[in-house]
């Protein structure tokens, strides 16, 4: 590992994985620290899922959400992708001295409405105020608890399985990149920030045995999730470029700044690996819901290129989708 923590250690890519494996879990407990989106804990009355996430973002308010709604939905989604029903959240605030109270109020209002929309309650919290310059306006940590009524939605993945997503790729990450680089949108583009527990619940209710894996492709985007799935596996995953739901605006910003939407963060998306024969049925269910209107099958699990995520491009050529190494910076090369 590097001598010092670099920005790239926080970007959801290879550097972060090294830090988690080589430092954090090694010391805190290889066995006890679970790597999945939530830890699954067995109690006498059943299974619960438990997770925590800390949110830092610039800007703290953006089209489609705030750091507050992000903090609620992010934790709700980490529980939901395990197949758990999210119930309770905590909220810890780290506030920078000088933050405007009106801003904090807006953020709290957006947290509350996100919690209401997701059907969860915020039941405990903590606040700290740090000296000016020691934090960037506001950092939020949320922890969440959900109950697992049925099975954990993790089953062996095999060739023939389908990969699907509930809508357009990269909206959140691209909105943020655009704001930071003084780009605007003529027709408006907003973050996709939304809770996924309703949609996931509907899918599992109709297809209780079909989902092999789910994850919310946040930091690091769709390509990073695919890389986690195929790591060390005897199968590969191929996406079809022509099948990817990507908005024009997302394509536009990506082209301008030299970034790839497959690596841009999503905050209201779930990527599913499902039994191939159920893919169309699941997409149909998703499309009947507002948060899944643009759902699509985007790829397949195959026996080709084991351990690799790859893209079949418009030309019919194939290229690998590597694990993102560091954060994406706007570039001109």
């Amino acid at each position, binding site marked *: 590992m590097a001598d010092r923590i670099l*920005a790239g250690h926080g970007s959801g890519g290879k550097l972060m994985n090294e830090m988690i494996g080589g430092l954090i879990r090694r010391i805190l407990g290889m066995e006890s620290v679970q790597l999945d989106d939530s830890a699954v804990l067995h109690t006498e009355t059943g299974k619960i899922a438990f997770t925590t996430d800390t949110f830092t973002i610039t800007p703290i308010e953006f089209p489609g959400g705030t750091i507050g709604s992000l903090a609620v939905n992010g934790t709700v989604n980490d529980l939901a992708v395990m197949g758990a029903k999210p119930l309770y959240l905590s909220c810890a605030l780290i506030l920078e001295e000088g933050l405007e109270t009106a801003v904090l109020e807006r953020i709290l209002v957006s947290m509350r409405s996100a919690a209401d929309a997701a059907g969860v309650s915020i039941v405990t919290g903590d606040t700290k105020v740090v000296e000016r310059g020691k934090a960037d306006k506001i950092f939020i940590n949320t922890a969440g608890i959900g109950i697992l009524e049925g099975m954990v939605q993790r089953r062996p993945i095999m060739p023939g399985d389908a990969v699907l997503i509930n809508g357009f790729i990269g909206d959140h990450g691209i909105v943020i990149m655009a704001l930071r680089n003084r780009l605007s949108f003529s027709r408006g583009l907003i973050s996709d920030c939304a809770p996924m527990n309703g949609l996931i619940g509907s899918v599992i209710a109709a297809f209780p045995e079909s989902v092999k894996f789910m994850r919310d492709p946040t930091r690091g985007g769709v390509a990073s999730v695919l890389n986690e799935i195929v790591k060390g596996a005897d199968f590969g995953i191929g996406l079809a470029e022509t099948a990817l739901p990507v908005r024009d605006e997302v394509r536009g910003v990506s082209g301008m700044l030299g970034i790839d939407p497959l690596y841009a963060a999503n905050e209201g998306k779930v990527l599913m690996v499902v039994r191939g024969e159920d893919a169309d049925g699941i997409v149909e269910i998703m499309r009947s819901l507002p948060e899944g209107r643009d759902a699509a099958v985007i790829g397949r699990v195959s026996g080709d290129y084991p351990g690799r995520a*790859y*893209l079949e*491009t*418009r030309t019919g050529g*194939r*290229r690998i989708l*590597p694990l993102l190494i*560091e954060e994406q910076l706007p570039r001109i*090369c």
Partner: protein
Amino acid sequence: MNNDNIRELADAFRSLRLKRDLRIMEVCGTHTTEFFRTGVRDVFPEGLALIDGPGCPVCVTPNDYLDRAIEIARVHGVTVATFGDMVKVPSSYSSLAAEKAQGLHLEVVYSPLDALEFAAANPGIEVMFLSVGFETTAPTEAVAVQRARERNIGNFSILCGNKLTPPAVKALLDAGETRIDGFILPGHVSAIIGVEPWRFAADSYGKPGVVAGFEAYDLITATTTLVRLIEAKRYVVENGYARVVRDRGNPKAREIMYTVFEERDAHWRGIGIIPDSGLALRDAYADFDAWLRFPVEPPPAREHPGCRCGDLLRGLILPTDCGLFGTACTPENAVGPCMVSSEGPCSAYYKYGGL
């Protein structure tokens, strides 16, 4: 333009029958990446090899440039404004990313004008912009300097490391170290300089060239045209990107560029000093020259002994021929710039070459 389907075009391209094996060089680093990213590299016809040229400005920038930038930031406490491309590039002893973790003030910008605005908004701090890039980028940097003068923004300066591409191609041909049958020429550099400055390759060296755009369509048609020219022994330079590139380029952009900059010998990684291949600020703009404004003595530059970026940039080897490739040198722990720059050949091979 009767192909209504890129896939059909790609299939036709893949089944091209070459009369003999050919080696063509893509000069531009953006082409290096786009050949992979679009999947066009995957449908190359048998017997056609694509050699990566010296067209990644980050890659050809020698270590002493970044060493100086870092030393200036350390000694004079200036804020470094840069394109995102330079952030992770290793210098002799460090990188901007590593220095940032230790307190260097770094401002990543999309345009040189953003760096100027940052300086204007923060009059209390010195802002040094890392002016790198080829003919496409140099005029934008020249404008930033002109505007700094017009608006009297005294806390803005640039560290000039700009380079010119035709002299590098000529240097490769003169060195004659590797067989190159023809060139895919850079589209956006040519938008500024035009087609004319490339004709020497065809006229004096018998190497045809095609100026290419960046879509899959452009790459396939330009490469097909180049193969045809080589096989027909037609030593000409064709413009395959006529929707953007005029034969005489953009004279206004060049006028701006040469008002602010003048040509000077420049040091290219791996190639060495090439006469008149770089740009420096003219005396009239010396006020904005970070080199003069912030005197430093950087430690002597050093290269990693095993790093073969230089050989690669001369077209002598493929990334995979380097002993460090993928082992000691990976994008997250790069030894040479070709592995870390977004358009570096090693980075492209490492990221996309695994299938």
